């Protein structure tokens, strides 16, 4: 059977990770496929996974009874989706839906959480990597809020 190790080792998010940690992470990984329109997760559900997108496009959205679905961001090939699995109470804050046929590697957050608690070196390493992603999203969201192409900036 094809192992996910070489794919994960090459991914920028995990690049340079100690081989023993990579093995541990591979143990929590599985291949997943979502059809166009399929929900990957919904607001309020347990956040027990995060995803490394291999192909396709995912929209992160919220729902307004008046406006309907409101898109916040899209994620595509090579990007990491989801960090609510790291933050109590481990619930998704938004919906994620595949815009087109999407293949991804799902990483079991529950399984990883216990491993991060057991081994704080691994915990710190992964936290550093997720902090970069969270900081990048925060910066992007601030820029979005500034409405830089509007009349006021």
């Amino acid at each position: 059977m094809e192992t996910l190790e070489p794919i994960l080792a090459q991914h920028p998010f995990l690049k340079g990770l100690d081989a023993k940690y990579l093995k541990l992470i591979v143990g929590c990984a599985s291949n997943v496929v979502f059809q166009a329109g399929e929900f990957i997760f919904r607001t309020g559900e347990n956040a027990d996974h995060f995803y490394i997108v291999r192909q396709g496009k995912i929209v992160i959205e919220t729902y307004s009874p008046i406006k309907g679905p409101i898109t916040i961001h899209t994620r595509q090939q090579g990007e990491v989706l989801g960090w609510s699995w790291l933050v109590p109470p481990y619930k998704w804050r938004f919906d994620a839906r595949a815009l087109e046929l999407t293949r991804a590697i799902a990483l079991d957050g529950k399984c990883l959480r216990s491993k991060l608690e057991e081994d704080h070196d691994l915990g710190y390493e992964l936290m550093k990597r997720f902090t970069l992603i969270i900081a990048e999203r925060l910066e992007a969201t601030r820029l979005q809020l500034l409405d830089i192409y509007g009349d006021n900036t």
Partner: protein
Amino acid sequence: MATTLEKIKEGLDRSQPWMPNLFRVERIRKETYDTFTFDLETSDGAGCAFQPGQFNMLYIYGVGEVPISISGDPKNSRTLVHTIRAVGTVTKNMRQLKRGDLVGVRGPFGRPWPVEDAKGHDVIIVAGGIGLAPLRPVIYHLLAHREQYGKIILHYGARTPDDILFRQELETWRARFDFDVQVTVDRSTGSWQGNVGVVTLLIPKATFDPLQTIAMVCGPEIMMRFTVLELLKRDLTEENIFLSGERNMKCGIGHCGHCQFGHLFVCNDGPVFRYSDTADLFKKREI
């Protein structure tokens, strides 16, 4: 004595850069709800040669004069093409112009994008909003001389799908195998199936050789600041990043000081600047 308007009507006189030359509106296209493109020609068809990135001072009689970049193909010097977002007095009046109306043109002025220096390099173009207009001549040039450049990448960010400029052209460019075109919007509306998120998010995913890449960036100043940070993270050097500056202008020829940007004049020393020459200015407030 002849009035200014009479002098202008006498015809083209490029020896006097403060005297507008008379051009006729030949064609007007609506690009978006607030942006339009018009083609200007002289009655004798002489037109005017320009380099990608240069701008003209466009004058509407009795209203005023504004700097507007040339957005057309540099190969076609007969027609001057300008893409204008109607934001205030002059540009809103320009939107009312009709075919056959006359516009005063002074120019072309300013330093162009470094299309010659970029030969043999990968080129990444990052445009935000109306910033795609001054970069379109670069795209025409690069595609017309495709074999002289490495990878060509365009990252374009707009406010919403309805604000995307040159949509048909973007689709044509995207269909090419030798041009990597990525478009994103800050807010999605309607049936948009493309990327949503700020334009800077596209940069980490682009593939180029950072040591051999020239970046050309144009858009609102905040967008350019964050774009530069992302490009530097990708190991581009400050010398290889070029930005287009925007300041109020009056003379357009380095006399009046209206467009002062630190120790530089945007009209003469720019509008295209090398980031390494202006990095300190871009970081300062109220310059």
